[in-house]
């Protein structure tokens, strides 16, 4: 019954590789159950295929390292056989960033699961395989929080956050993962282990910058030291209704160019109706910490919208991790996905309208909506949601992405925080222009045999 779209090119070598891995004490499996478990990420195309017992790819083996030294040994062996290695955290990414299209080894980072809290320096050292929700709970039990809260918190990992340059629901105040990250332990493609001390700042190019958002193509993140903070004791929640997205966005600009609320989101008419049963555009704000009273007063005084109280904020907080709609859509043969981009205030509404129109114009689109989810002094992130139905779902899906990316290029980034993977790789050269070749060169320099996550980000070979 099992169907595989792209078969491995390395199946003939795998017995020897597995034998070698076992010889140096690495846990490795070639059992079908493990290979199915590490066959894909959470890209929506894979979900619709699953119903038909179809997988996009299948690794030849799954390796389960327990520490950086194990990862190093695996990379040395993989190099000696020139066999691909695909790095897996929680496999919750949506941009086809981990799917092992070439075959080879799926590297499960989940056993690197240690957590060490340094209350004096307000730091936590976490293994790459630590699941976000677990980390946050462990911190909460001791009165701390990361305040890094992506919607995938409960199923994504620390290594995955860094590798995909993740962003959380409270990023407007506390920053994205790059602002929370202090230092890394990384295994390079040739097996060398490198580690930086967690210092507040240092001169020269920050070594972290080589790996934040690198999506596993430059090295394998094994451990991250992150900033933690005490759980804020005080907060205020406020919601407003506006007649238009334009008004809401302009009011958001006024707020974030004065101070950064912990939470700020704007939902277009369709999402406001769905989430809050409100006709209009809803903005939710949450301020917290020592300055919460003053920040609330500012918001109440300056925001020109209809006051809705705190209920919409509570409703959203209650439902913010509920992604069960996907499980309802897919069995109906409907494909469902999200596209997030960032842009400046100057052309924000142009980007919003252009991308929404591009998605809606594709034949098969059932719905397209948007919310603004992350805010900066200079601009914001728009997060589009679409669902469609078509005889050929893949064709429809790829057309939506093509139109949306073409609409974004030139006025917005092609991604804010979901990453590039295989899905967006073809638009990256246009976005990065001259820098693209530099990154390609770096990839060649770091990974001469192109064995680490081949087919992703800067490599068009062997993709889905």
């Amino acid at each position, binding site marked *: 019954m099992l169907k595989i779209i792209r078969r491995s090119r390395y199946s003939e070598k795998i017995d020897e590789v597995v034998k070698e891995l076992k010889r140096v004490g690495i846990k490795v499996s070639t059992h*079908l*159950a*493990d290979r199915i*478990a590490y066959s894909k990420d959470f890209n929506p195309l894979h979900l619709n295929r*699953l119903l038909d017992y179809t997988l996009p790819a299948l690794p030849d083996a799954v390796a389960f390292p327990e520490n950086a030294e194990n990862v190093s040994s695996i990379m040395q062996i993989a190099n000696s056989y020139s066999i691909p290695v695909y790095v897996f955290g929680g496999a919750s990414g949506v941009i086809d960033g981990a799917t092992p299209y070439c075959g080879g080894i799926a590297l499960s980072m989940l*056993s690197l699961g240690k957590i060490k809290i340094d209350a004096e320096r307000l730091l936590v050292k976490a293994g790459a395989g630590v699941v976000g929700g677990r980390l946050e709970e462990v911190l909460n039990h001791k009165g701390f929080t990361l305040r890094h809260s992506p919607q995938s918190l409960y199923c994504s990992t620390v290594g995955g956050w860094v590798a995909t340059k993740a962003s959380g629901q409270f990023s407007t105040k506390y920053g994205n993962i790059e602002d929370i990250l202090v230092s890394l332990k990384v295994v390079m493609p040739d097996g060398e282990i490198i580690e930086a001390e967690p210092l507040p700042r240092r001169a020269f190019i920050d070594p972290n910058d080589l790996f934040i958002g690198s999506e596993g193509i430059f090295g394998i993140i094994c451990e991250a030291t992150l900033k933690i903070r005490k759980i804020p004791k005080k907060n205020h929640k406020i919601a407003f209704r506006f007649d238009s997205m334009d008004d809401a966005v302009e009011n958001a600009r006024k707020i974030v160019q004065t101070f950064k609320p912990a939470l700020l989101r704007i939902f277009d008419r*369709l999402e406001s109706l769905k989430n809050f049963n409100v006709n209009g555009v809803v903005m939710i704000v949450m301020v917290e910490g020592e300055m919460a009273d003053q920040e609330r007063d500012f918001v109440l005084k300056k925001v020109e919208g209809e006051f809705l109280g705190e209920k919409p904020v509570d409703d959203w907080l209650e439902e913010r991790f509920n992604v069960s709609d996907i499980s*309802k859509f897919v069995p109906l043969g409907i494909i469902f996905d999200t596209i997030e981009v960032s842009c400046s205030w100057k052309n924000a509404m142009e980007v919003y309208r252009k991308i929404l129109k591009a998605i809606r114009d594709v034949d098969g689109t*059932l*719905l397209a909506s948007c919310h603004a989810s992350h805010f900066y002094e200079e601009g914001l992130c728009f997060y589009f949601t679409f669902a469609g139905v078509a005889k050929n779902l893949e064709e429809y899906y790829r057309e939506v992405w093509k139109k949306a990316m073409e609409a974004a290029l030139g006025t917005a980034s092609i991604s804010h925080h979901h990453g590039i993977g295989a899905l967006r790789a073809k638009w990256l050269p246009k976005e990065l222009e001259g820098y693209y070749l530099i990154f390609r060169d770096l990839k060649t320099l770091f990974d001469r045999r192109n064995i680490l996550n081949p087919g992703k980000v800067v490599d068009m070979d062997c993709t889905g």
Partner: protein
Amino acid sequence: MFSNIKWILQATSSSTLKTKLSLIKEALPKVGKGDDIVRCMLCPNMCLHVCPVFDAERRLTVSPSVKSRLAYFSSGGEDVGDALWRCLPCNACKQACPTDISVNENLIDERNKICELDEEPESVKLAFITHESMIRDLEKKFREKFGEFEKRDGKLLYFPGCRTFEVAEVIRSTIKILDFLEIDFAFRNVLCCGSYLKELGYLRQFREHIRNLKDILGSYEGVVSNCPHCVKVFLKDYGIKAIHISQLIAGKIDRFKVTELSSDDPDKPDKADKLSSATYHDPCILSRDLGIVEEPRKILSELGIKLKEVGYNKKNTYCCGFGGIYPYIDTSMASKISEERRKQLIEASQTILTFCPICKKALDAKDITEVLAELV
């Protein structure tokens, strides 16, 4: 989302007629097709952070959503080994799931299909044999001497549960308490509720077990047990009245008040003093399935024991690792879970109390019945 008609109409208002027709043609015939296995496998694993089996094994293969994926592929004819049995009845996934899906309960039907074809993995067959031999040993003990316990008759059946016999001090304590409370209770040689048969997927044998036992159990006014598994299965699968011992005690806790007991007998040391503080481990089934969270706390409070709560508590408890069939499938992984849980509990207090014989044994804890028995 489908309940909000206003939203659906607005959402689809801008789609073309062709798209709307596609929706009717492609989607409508599929309404109601996805079951819980499908819904679960389409989730990105939003309960991964609470799954103790994943936490111990650290591989996606045994994570909740992937186990559902494997069950789906298994139903399509693939051999996925024993992954479908690597699960605990803790329902941590259900507690975290917005659509209330219990992965373990979902997997039982697929396990059953495999068992009916006699294609279950060796580890499953071995788990069955291990449990059966434990029951046979107990039956033998009962035949020879009825253990140390006296057979008796009464209105309410005291059914310790097979795993409680592994910690016989809990049975001793419970009998002492039931006598102290002047409960008219029966005690007899019925040992196992059969829940392990259900968990393993031997549903035919489980139904037969129920048939054999239901008449005996049904002849009493109700059943009281130390084992949350037994209570759950009696309520859900047998359809008979059953309560956990904590419920019975909580309703009569006044009788155990330390002041009354100690003032009546000046020679008797006030034993509750020795246990001035402790932490409490909420057994998964007791807290999540039976909703018994406050009763144990009420009992401890009435006894004057200061409760030092552990981070994972009440319905957000953390499994001891030894419930259901998982310890028979992989003892070392079950032990890894219990070690992790014990570490969490010890951070709160060196004294660990619980209300389940399985958790007691796994965590080297004291059952609350033992604390109470010392007082009477």
